[in-house]
């Protein structure tokens, strides 16, 4: 995977700003856009995966215990997961409080 953009100097750019590596959008940190982040209350989670399905950034992935957890490197804090969660297990919390 390529360097994060904040570390790339002008000399390191490919001629014509061409991207030669597929999947380079994976390097782009959209997680710093958010002011609220999703916090899961595990007792309420029924593992339905609706948060995973609805997430517009595909930030959700399964953790080893079988819970869907948002990768905060990508999560923009839109809150769709919390809105769609049928058991209200996800709460959007200001980043500085969590």
């Amino acid at each position, binding site marked *: 995977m390529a360097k994060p953009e904040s570390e790339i100097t002008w000399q390191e750019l490919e001629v014509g700003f*061409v991207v030669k590596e597929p999947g380079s959008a994976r390097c782009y940190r959209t997680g710093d856009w958010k002011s609220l982040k999703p916090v899961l209350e595990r007792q309420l989670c029924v593992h339905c995966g609706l948060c995973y399905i609805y997430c517009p950034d595909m930030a959700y992935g399964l953790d080893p215990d079988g819970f869907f957890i948002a990768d905060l490197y990508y999560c923009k804090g839109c809150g769709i997961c919390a809105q769609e969660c049928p058991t209200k297990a996800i709460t959007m919390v200001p980043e500085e409080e969590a």
Partner: protein
Amino acid sequence: MAKRLGMEGSIAASEAVRLADTDVVAAYPITPQTHIVEHLSEFVNNGELDAEFIPVESEHSAMSVCIGSSAAGARTFTCTSSQGLALMSEIVYIAPCLRLPIVMILANRSLSAPISIWNDHTDVMSIRDCGWIQVFVENGQETFDHVLWAFRVGEDHSVLHPVIINMDGFILTHTIEPLELLDQESVDRFLPPYEPYLSLHPDKPVTMGCIAMPGLYTETKKAQDEALKASMPTILQGWKEFGDLTGRYYEPIEEYATEDAEVLFVTMGSFGGTACAAADIMRERGKAVGILKIRLWRPFPFEVFRKATQKAKTLIVIDRATSYGGPGGPVASELRAALYGEKKQPSVVNFIAGLAGRDVAPQDFEKMADIVLEGKAKTRQEEYQIYGVRE
């Protein structure tokens, strides 16, 4: 031995595009560029040029096609003028950042309003900062030569930049003059086949023209500016090799009768020849006037310019465009900036002349010189005057 012919500038230009074995021509007709496109279309129709001729529906599409074809690895040519360039301009800026060596002839014509089909430099000055290599030519021979030179330099992997050849509309596009074409063998020796540095191909997919977020845009612009400036040695080498082949050597700024001249005219394009004729007449009358002809507009040859002007007392810069409410014409304001801070600098007198085909004859150059020699010229900061305007 090269053939010497009587030929219109536009036909000479299209002959050069044919001899360059161009792969794709995408253009929309507009006066006074039309003859170039017409002749290229005939070449393709007659089987004399094995190219895709794409008759697009607008100049915006013309440059879009050029970018696509150049990105796919095709040697690509287009030409336009005035309003066509204005419509094209959104796409013009994209080619140099993607480092695509398209060659474009700009048959210089004034911009509306009022509607005018005649020659000045307001069109090219509207895209001054587009990032292309930009040269001005003085006659049909130079146009022919510079098409070949532009492909040779632009496609060099040390350059990879698109090139605009500024050719004064009508004055050069529609004038028949004696000139020499090169034979195919000489052209092939000077101009190797185009080898793209990176190209769009399914075997090795890449992304061209992607988005840059605020974290990278600054770096791309720095890289683009440095790349354009770094093209200078290859630009000079291209002219040297062309001179060795043909005996016609070109320079970023060319001098005429400058040795003992305290007053120098600075011109671009077809004014150069008229100014030289005027210098001869003035010298017969004891006025030591010389001529500097700016051929290379971008990247601007700052060092060459400062060296060429260090002995002069006065520069008379003739602009063929106006910067409304600004610091005189665009050329003069840039030259003043290039001299700013130099220990010894000539005063810069700025005339705006020859707008929209208004004829400027050798005697007009003498009249402008007389205004300066009699101490009646405006020389302070942003001051300029429009030569020949009726008051």
